[in-house]
């Protein structure tokens, strides 16, 4: 069974971000980009399935600008067999954006978010079909847009069962069904899914392996397939963002707090000032 894993390139989780002075978006305080942590977990799970002999091939895919290829190299170094990049050039967005904005007539878009989940899900659906994938693994959310949508939308477009927020995944030997433990509000839930299916990884599914330097060097020499939209039967308007970001604001800052010297003082202030006790 072939496993498709979607990976996204994001500002590294440890790098602080701040709102840009022109309020058009955010900027990272350090120029460090990494694979989205939840995508790492999804990829790790796929590689483990291959090591167990349940998966025959692991294909890492990414949809986005040219620099997303760096993340696909990391995926190859972690153990993916192949990497497929669906390039979306800046001018693709410009053209698509102009079409999408027709008639909006509102304030100028402060920033174009080049990737929105519906467009990515459409690309992944086309790729899953082309590759004949039996399972698509994604992270539960990307830590930049915090959307938590792509996996669910992909499953909907394909008409496949879905298991989101997976913390445990077991496949039977024949790879006909998957048993998934999900993290839900209040506890855990166990589902069994007929394959093909879409599964999104939660934090506790596994701990991703470190990429070794020799593996990274080998990955640098391996080819990354480019799969343009047209080849997948998609047009630029299929991936055009439907939402314009018309402004980005700083979160409200809290008034400076005070240090208290003792538990006694803390309780007194909570009663008399904050009135919460």
């Amino acid at each position, binding site marked *: 069974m072939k496993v498709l894993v979607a990976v996204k390139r994001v500002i590294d*989780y440890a790098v*602080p*971000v*701040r709102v840009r002075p022109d309020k058009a978006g*955010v900027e990272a305080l350090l120029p460090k980009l990494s694979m989205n942590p939840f995508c790492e977990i999804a990829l790790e799970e796929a590689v483990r399935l291959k090591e167990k002999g349940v998966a025959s091939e692991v294909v890492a895919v990414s949809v986005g600008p040219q620099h997303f290829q760096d993340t696909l190299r990391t995926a190859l170094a972690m153990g993916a067999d192949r990497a497929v990049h669906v390039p979306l050039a800046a001018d693709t967005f410009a053209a698509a954006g102009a079409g999408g*904005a*027709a008639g*909006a007539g*509102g*304030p100028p*878009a402060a920033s174009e978010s080049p990737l929105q*989940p*519906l467009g990515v899900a459409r690309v992944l659906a086309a790729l899953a079909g082309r590759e004949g994938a039996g399972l698509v693994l994604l992270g539960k959310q990307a*830590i*930049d*847009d*915090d*959307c*938590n*949508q792509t996996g*669910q*939308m992909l*499953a*909907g477009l394909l008409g496949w*069962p*879905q298991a989101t*927020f997976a913390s445990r995944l077991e496949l039977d030997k024949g790879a006909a069904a998957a048993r998934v433990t999900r*993290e*839900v*509000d*209040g*506890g*855990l*839930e166990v*589902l069994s899914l*007929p394959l093909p299916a879409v599964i999104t990884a939660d*934090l506790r599914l596994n701990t991703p392996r470190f990429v070794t330097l020799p593996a990274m060097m080998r990955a640098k020499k391996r080819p990354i397939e480019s799969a343009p939209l047209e080849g997948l039967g998609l047009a630029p308007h299929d991936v055009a963002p*439907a*939402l*314009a*970001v*018309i*402004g*980005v604001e700083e*979160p*409200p800052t*809290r*008034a400076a*707090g*005070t*240090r*208290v010297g003792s*538990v006694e003082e*803390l*309780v007194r*202030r*909570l009663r008399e000032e*904050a009135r*919460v*006790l």
Partner: protein
Amino acid sequence: MIPALFTVGLRWSAHSLVRSSATQARQASTLLYVEHSGDGTVAPATLSAAEAAKHLPGQLEALVCGSGDAVKRAAEAAARLPGVSKVWLASDSALTHPLAETHAKLLSSLATKQKPSHVLAASTAQGRNVLPRAAALLATQPVTDVVRIVDDNTFVRPIYAGNAFATVQFKSPPAVRVVTVRPTAFPVDPTAAAAAGAPGGSGSPAPVEPVPPELLAPLSSVPAAKWESADVRSTGRPELGSAKVVVCGGRALKSAENFAMLEQLADLLGGAVGASRAAVDAGYVANDLQVGQTGKVVAPDLYIGVGISGAIQHLAGMKDSRTIVAINNDGEAPIFSVADYGLEADLFKAVPELIEAVKKVKQ
């Protein structure tokens, strides 16, 4: 609450008014996806979503999916939600458990039939599982975890773990907008919450109508996951997402046993216990108690962080709390930058003292 955001929206309000009137001409209405427990009560998060619906134009109709007695009682409770003018009752064995495949299918087919301008739900584990799938079936880009509704086409949502708030707007208004809202951003008036779901509550309930049978018929052939089991804890404490007091512990608690201290404090205050990711990963408490970007978002009246350093991913889940208390032996810990009251102390000394002091106050 996020008062500063109100000033954000005003800048675009003139434009917004024009757009609102244009789209209202297309019979604005909202279809609310109701989350309910097995015993027939509506989830508190859905009450917040109903509150959020007040910011959208047109009538509010609710969809309750399930089977058997539970779904009937949930529908009756939903009929008493403030603002709800009609309840669609979908009772079918394929809907017994909240599986995304069948629930999203029904939600999208009812939306196609009724043509609401908005489909709305709370951004809970269930809402986040079902709504994006329904949006894909409706070929529309959803907007999730909304903290403010500027107008029917414009929404504010947190990005980058709450380090920024983006105002997003549909470039050309779609036929239907699929939206999930962050429950803590739309607090419910407690008296309204008490009335909702209580027989003989305020006013007369909205009519309950079964969904047309032709919408239920295709559900049995939807390729879907099979629900096997659930392990849902019952602690008797208030639900983390809606508790008035939250006591959170971090890795510095050192063991699962030491969390008993925090449970004792939480019980004295009538609150819930939460944890940082580090404490969950260390196995001190269950996963569903995690507060943060990838766990629960809480905004209680009183948050007490014990032995929590305050990584941005954790702060994303609690910094809208009304009063924040931090107890940590590291005076440089980032949590002190958001704390209203910071106590630099050894938690193993301070927490028992705090328990005794609270006992005295409560007597």
